[in-house]
């Protein structure tokens, strides 16, 4: 178990700046997720922590020890590759035992440790199989066992679920969570799937084009995004350009179309802002302490247990999400509709600079 600290990590590949100064503080025994779209630098960050790449500048600490330029095989940060990277010419046993044998561990001890690891991932009895004789989920487990068995300081998981089918993905997700809790190990997890990140993580760092946009618990990230990017990356959301007309402490009054409303204030001094409103926080019945917008129904989309109502307010479209229920039959395109929003559900953020 170890604390991982990244200080101002910069990495360029030729002309491209992949990481523009990453700072991260990952706690003991935490499951920490790097989340972002492809090309945001999350995998590069992971590979730098693993020692498979070296940063141009910046420092990495495991606990108090600086490990920035330690070669990968001395680092103790073991990576589980996205494609598992199981060696097809070795059996499950030999794959898992590889790292232990390199340490010069006696045979008997190697056998015990491998047995322990295979038990942990519930693949006892598969020792003599070859990777090609395993299913995708089993291969994934072997890859995890191979990493865990060497007792890494940090376990790094690079998009571990991306090659699995939907059902297996849920299963492996809780499996990873279980193993992490059982061993109390520090895990750094990379994914582009926000739902997966929220379900599994203690904390999340949302990354975009080589920078960390926000770090926080899944709840913080989802409910109080600090940038337009984070807001729109974390699930479906309404992002509406607006103008600030009045400031009042942490509250601010804004205007869009012909509507004027008050929201939670996270802007800098700019008057060009966006309003971020989660679709499930827009209601179709009266709320206290909120605003109401009246417009027309543009479209109703039925998703089973919930329904999305897209309302047209002037030129602006807003999506409201509500549980499927009786009483929604009246909502037909071109019919009038009123959306109700509580003040605290309107988040005012600086407009994203492109």
């Amino acid at each position: 178990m170890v604390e991982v600290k990244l200080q101002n990590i910069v990495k360029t590949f030729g002309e491209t700046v992949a990481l523009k100064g990453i700072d991260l503080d990952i706690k003991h025994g935490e499951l920490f997720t790097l989340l972002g779209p492809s090309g945001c630098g999350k995998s590069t960050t992971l590979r730098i922590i693993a020692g498979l790449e070296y940063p141009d500048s910046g420092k990495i600490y495991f606990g108090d020890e600086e490990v920035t330029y330690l070669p990968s095989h001395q680092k103790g940060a073991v990576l589980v590759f996205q494609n598992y990277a199981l060696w097809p010419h070795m059996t499950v046993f030999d794959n898992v035992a590889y790292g232990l044998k390199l340490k010069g561990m006696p045979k008997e001890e190697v056998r015990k440790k491998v047995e322990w690891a295979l038990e942990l991932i519930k693949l006892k009895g598969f020792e003599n199989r070859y990777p090609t004789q395993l299913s995708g989920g089993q291969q994934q487990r072997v890859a995890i066992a191979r990493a865990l068995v060497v007792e890494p300081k940090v376990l790094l998981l690079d998009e571990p679920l991306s090659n699995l089918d939907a059902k297996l993905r849920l299963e492996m997700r809780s499996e990873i969570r279980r193993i992490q809790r059982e061993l109390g190990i520090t895990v750094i997890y990379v994914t582009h799937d926000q739902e997966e990140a929220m379900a599994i993580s203690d904390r999340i760092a949302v990354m975009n084009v080589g920078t960390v946009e926000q770090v926080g618990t899944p709840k913080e990230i989802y409910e109080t995004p600090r940038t337009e990017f984070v807001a729109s990356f974390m699930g479906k959301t309404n992002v509406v350009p607006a103008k600030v007309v009045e400031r009042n402490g942490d509250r601010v009054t804004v205007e869009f179309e012909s509507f004027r409303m008050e929201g939670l204030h996270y802007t800098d001094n700019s008057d060009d802002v966006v309003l971020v409103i989660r679709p499930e926080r827009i209601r179709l019945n009266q709320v206290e302490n909120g605003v109401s917008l009246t417009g027309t129904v543009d479209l109703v989309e039925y998703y089973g247990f919930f329904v999305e109502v897209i309302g047209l307010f002037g030129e602006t479209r807003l999506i409201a999400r509500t549980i499927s229920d009786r009483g929604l039959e009246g909502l037909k395109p071109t019919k009038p509709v009123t959306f109700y929003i509580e003040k605290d559900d309107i988040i005012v953020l600086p407009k994203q600079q492109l």
Partner: protein
Amino acid sequence: MAVNKWVERFFGTPMPDAVVISSFLFPLIYLIAFLIIPVLVMLLTAFLYHGHISLFWFKSIFGSPYYFNPLHPEGSLVTTIQQGNQTVYYLSGWDFGVVINSILVSLTVMLLTTILGVTFAFVMARYDFPGKNIMRILLFVPLLVTPFVNVVVVKKMFLPNGLINWIFYQHLHLFPHPIWIDGLVGVIIAQSITYYPIVYLNAYASFINIDPSLEEQAENLGSRGFHLFRTVTFPLALPGIAAGATLVGIFSLEDLAAPIVFQGTAIAKKLMSFQIYSSFVSGFAIGNPQMAALSLIMLTIALIMFLTIRWYVGMKQYAMLSKGGRWKPRVAKPKGWQAAIIYLVVVPLLLITIFPQIGVVLLAFSRRWYGTWPEGFTLANMKALMTQPDIVRVIENSLIYSTVAIAIILLLSLTASYAAGRFKKAKLAPVLDSLATIPIAVPGIVIAMSYFFFFSTVPPFKGTILDPTNLLAFFPGAALILAYSIRRLPFAARSISAGIQQVHVSLEEAAVNLGAGRWKALTSILIPMILLNLLGGAMLSFVYCMSETSVGITLGSINSTWYPITAKMRELIMGAVGSASLAAALGVFLMLVQILAIVIANVITKQRYSFIGLT
């Protein structure tokens, strides 16, 4: 320790790593020492006249009608001659001077091999007909390399009393008079029959790799028959076909077997390869700077062909856009007229092109061959392979040279492919990559010539066993091993780097990440995973080393004790009556080695390796 930007720029790894750096430096230094510098020494020789930089030797070539005579060719393509009481059409070709002859022969051979190769490939790739499997096996025969003796058989086939006239004049009465193919036309025919399998293999692979949906879409839109072939199929296959044809062009340029066999007719000697070769064997012209200049002209032509095709194929590298879908090869039953063409034209043509190999076997088991068919069955020649001391000796020599060369080739191609394939960002990676493939474009006779100038003049080697002018100490084996290792490197390197590309880099990274050093990751992960490619590359290069001709009959034939097989074969076919049969027996031995290698490659590695003919 911190990141070393200098190391990263050149070697692609930020940490100075002994395994990586030596993987770059070993092949790089070897190729510079035994390919680049020798060629540069020859280049310097060609540009020096009485100690000054001069174009004198080039002027002496282009100013002489013997070498360069574009406007007033001598001779004629066809003449009728009286032989006894019958008229014979005699084809020997025009003489435009050595340089232009070589280029024209090379271009004609490219054209003929393309026609033959594409025809066979298209029939095999697209039609299903009774006897196709037999044809598939027969198409394998012309791939077997039998230096010199196959040309001897081709020459016999096209004599007035040869097989061709026996069929087409005597029996089918298709020719009004017998034909006799000799001189440069003979060289062209012999080379076309020898080299067309290279185009065939490339064209076949190209036709097979075309996504069927591309042709189906064209048909769906109304294109059929030849229009479909001309607008979709052929353009898609063209890069592969052109690459094969270019390789053939280079091989034709450097070929010595055909001109040596046909040298009884003066015009067949008027080719660049033969001129350089004869300066070697005649002795008096050895070390003549004019020959260095001629070698340089030949090298330049070959390099231009090579670089053009690399550029063209690179440009036309259509990434196949197809995603998913059914991939059912487009194989059809031929219609009536198509079947007629297959059985009446294509199959007989194939039988003619495999006859040289059959003829070599017949020759090896016969006492003499004057007329249409060989006569007098004997096992003496085959027995001589095991009993006649000078024959046993050359077999041993070739086996030893080739084995040592293979060890070097494997080491070179493994390090070069690993360095260039795994550290692509390194500045040295593309340099190494080019250096490892360029020997394909360097004619063997040019290497022989360069080595002659290099080892006989440059200090560290001058006077050693590598110096061919140091007659008492010169050991041809050493020069041959060096030449083999350079010349045959590209074939093993290609097989091995294909293997490395198939192993995802994460497999090594996982090992390094789990505590292995680079050396350990290389030996425990990468090498075991590409073992089959190593074996395949070794087989391929071994076969080519055994049958290497150009260097073997020049540097390799200075001292008969150290002859490789091909040097002995050349001596035998030029020797006394009947000795050609002994050369044929050596040819049969080489064929057996090749069949064995192919069987090993196919059975043990379960992969299909295409052997391409090389001399």
